[in-house]
């Protein structure tokens, strides 16, 4: 009771204590914002990977046949909700007058893909409806339709980083030309003589894809897998693919699912693909595992930045020390009176250490609140900075995503708060010891 009474009194009388609360709040909010932005970016990277390629990916070193049978077997597994095949190749795209882009073309099954990745929500036109996405060209059933990434067609505005959707959607219906290449099947294993054959294909843009991930929107063009196969591998009799993307059933453990899928894949290779050794030990990994090298690097950068700001925030310890040292110096008579009434030295020390910890708690609380507000509104703040200072801080072409990830990282909040409270308590240690060693007989002497 005495402790609380004294804490409240010092808080009322010594307004300078609010300075230490403010310093703790400032440091905690800065660390919180940095941790949240980095964690948010990493989560967004993971999420983008899953939305692009599904939960699990089978990536053989070369294309393989009979993928429909494989998909049928995969979908019979209780761990697998849906699966789809893709065929890919680097390409050049001629969009119109003098407009050529280097792109990556993916042959896909749009309806299946929508089940595996939620692909339809990224389509500007077909995303509005409940129907399955399709490559059909309205009014021209004989034409090949295709989807094109939004940044393939046009770059975002340099000042606002926003797309002119109205102008971009005028490209829908335009016929464009794609050139790509592949090694004919007969030459696949004749490495010295293998020569990539160039193929050209004309298609009509039937929709624009806007994922919000700049790299994907700038690079990818999507065509029907059958049409792409006909161009790349015209002599193949059956259907071929070079990647299988899988969505797992809800609640499935990824490790368990990968083990089961690997077993099924190896059986499939043994039965249907002549047990080819280079296919048996294919990479089968989750979308998140594929991003691991980049995520590890991002985590390292986050750690270094938090360390730097943490070291500078050590100044808070010094500030709290100075403030409490001043309070102890000025309140020596109070302390002497308390001790003369029988309070032990340890209790006296605990009063100040406890007060320091309270300062840390209150400061952390305010800091977390401010950090949350800033993180949640970071896109609005970035918008204000652009309007007021004309400075566009976040660009999708630099930072990959159209919007700054703004989810608060609550997992980082607890360690930051604990560190802040510990720092505040440490700052009060020496003043608490000085207070504990006060001798009432010397302080209360009448001079």
């Amino acid at each position, binding site marked *: 009771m005495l402790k609380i009474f004294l804490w409240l009194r010092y808080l009322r009388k010594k307004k*300078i204590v609010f300075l230490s609360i403010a310093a703790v709040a400032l440091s905690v909010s800065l660390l919180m914002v940095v941790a949240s932005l980095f964690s948010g970016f990493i989560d967004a990277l993971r999420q983008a990977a899953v939305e692009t390629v599904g939960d699990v990916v089978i990536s053989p070193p070369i294309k393989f046949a009979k993928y429909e049978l494989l998909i049928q077997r995969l979908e019979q597994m209780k761990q697998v909700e849906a699966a789809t095949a893709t065929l890919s190749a680097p390409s050049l795209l001629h969009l119109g007058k*003098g407009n050529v882009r280097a792109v990556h073309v993916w042959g896909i099954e749009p309806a299946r893909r929508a089940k595996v990745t939620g692909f339809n929500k990224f389509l500007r036109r077909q995303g509005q409806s409940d129907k399955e996405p399709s490559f059909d060209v309205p009014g021209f059933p004989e034409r090949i339709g295709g989807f094109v990434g939004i940044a393939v067609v046009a770059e975002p505005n340099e000042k606002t980083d926003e797309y002119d959707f109205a102008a971009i959607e005028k490209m829908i219906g335009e016929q464009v*030309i794609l050139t790509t290449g592949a090694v004919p099947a007969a030459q696949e294993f004749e490495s010295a003589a293998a020569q990539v054959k160039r193929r050209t294909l004309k298609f009509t843009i039937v929709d624009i894809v806007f994922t919000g991930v700049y790299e994907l929107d700038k690079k990818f063009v999507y065509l029907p897998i059958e049409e792409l196969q006909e161009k790349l591998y015209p002599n193949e009799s059956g259907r071929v693919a070079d990647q299988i993307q899988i969505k797992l059933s809800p609640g499935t453990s990824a490790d368990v699912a990968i083990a089961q899928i690997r077993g099924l894949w190896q059986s499939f290779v043994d039965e249907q693909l002549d047990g080819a050794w280079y296919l048996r030990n294919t990479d089968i990994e989750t979308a998140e595992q594929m991003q691991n090298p980049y995520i590890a690097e991002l985590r390292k950068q986050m750690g270094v930045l938090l360390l730097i700001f943490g070291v500078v925030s050590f*100044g808070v310890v010094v500030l709290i020390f100075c403030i409490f040292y001043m309070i102890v110096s000025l309140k020596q008579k109070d302390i002497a009176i308390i001790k003369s009434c029988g309070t032990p030295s340890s209790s006296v020390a605990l009063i100040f250490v406890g007060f320091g910890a309270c300062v840390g708690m209150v400061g952390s609380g305010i800091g977390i609140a401010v950090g949350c507000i800033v993180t949640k509104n970071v896109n609005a703040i970035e918008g204000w900075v652009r309007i007021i200072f004309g400075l566009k801080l976040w660009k999708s072409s630099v930072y990959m995503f159209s919007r700054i990830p703004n989810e608060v990282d609550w997992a980082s909040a607890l360690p930051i708060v604990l560190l802040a409270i510990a720092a505040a308590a440490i700052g009060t240690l020496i003043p608490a010891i000085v207070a504990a060693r006060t001798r009432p007989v010397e302080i209360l002497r009448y001079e």
Partner: protein
Amino acid sequence: MYKIILAIRYLIKRRITYFAVLAVALCVFIVVVVMTVMTGLVSDFKQKNRDFVGDCIVGTESLVGFTYYKDFMTMMEETDFIEGVSPVIKSYALISRAGSQHCYGVEIMGLDPVRHSQATSFGQTLYYRKADAAKAFVPTYDPNLPGCVLGIDLALPRDSNSSYPYAVSPAEIGYSISCFPLTAKGALAKAGLGEINTQTFYFSDHSQSGLAREDSSLVYLPFEQAQLLCGMAGPLERANAVHIKFKPNLKLNAGCEKVASLWQMFKQQKAGEEQADLLDTVTVQSWKDYRRAFIAAMEKEQTMMTVMFAFVGITTVFIVFVVLYMIISHKSKDIGILKSVGVSNADIVELFSGFAFLIGFLGSGVGLSAGWLFLIRINRIEKWLFEHFDFQLWDRTIYAIGDIPNQVSPKVLVVIVISAIVACLAGALVPCWQAAKSKPIETLQVNQL
């Protein structure tokens, strides 16, 4: 004189001021290290961009290019402020290596290696032909074959020491390169006839510009061959850009203005001629404007870091405020005595401001020294951490960085020291004002003594 004596006395006698000095030193240390590294990275990046493009670029974004570039180059070469001029073809292509099953999309740059080495630092980026850029496209194994120079990251993997496993001599490898030839109106020149041009080139050298994007996506071809490949050859030849280097004594902006006015004059001369409308898409830009999309991103990071450190530096202001507040509270009698012997309020403020200045100055000095000592060893420290803990601040297999920059910039130092001193003076404002406002008659009362 007494101001200096008292300020030094408070600094020495009051041990609490050591904490203020320590806090300032810590902040300055961190800021010096981080800003030196960031400034070094940004300067390095800017210099590499300048080396890559030269001083000024007259060019168009359109892949169609523009005509009469040769006449314009002749005009440039007749002036006395131009050191080098180089025309360039730019386009996108598909490339596949002989014997490989894969092809990939690249950017191609057609250039004359001699001219381009005069206008930019292209010759310095080569490996096998660094001493003789004229032979950049001449494979050592067969001088009759058409050569191509690959961006280093297209051909070789970078290791964790930022080195590449160069072969003793270029390997005999053919690359099939295809692109869309375009007419002057931007249409496909071979529409209905296969649409693309394909030609095989043979690896002759690597180019390492130090720019990650360029080194991983650019293939350099001989100018005339690139022109043919892109459909820009013929009676009215086209190019995409002309890179220009000014003589050393000419300032960048002045040079670009001269080139811009010459370009306007040239455009007027050519008005009405065939395909002269292509000249309307051409702009004259300095290297800074031309590469601003890349440079601006790094400069913005630097600015954001500075702002964040400014927030953290507010803690330093608080610390100085508290320390001075404490000292002034304890020294109220001293202040009362000083004022009673005639020291003015302004002098009191000057005294404690000087004291804050000393804290800032001393703290900056300690912080700067510690920062400098750390920076001269930073690469050794990183190497030690990598050898013992497998920790590298920037993974060199992912980031195109060599050694961590550690050259302390005097300009950056001065700004940091001034900021630290200003922060200390800001922290001292309120306590100084309180000290000045105190009345000797109150502080020197018998029951106060």
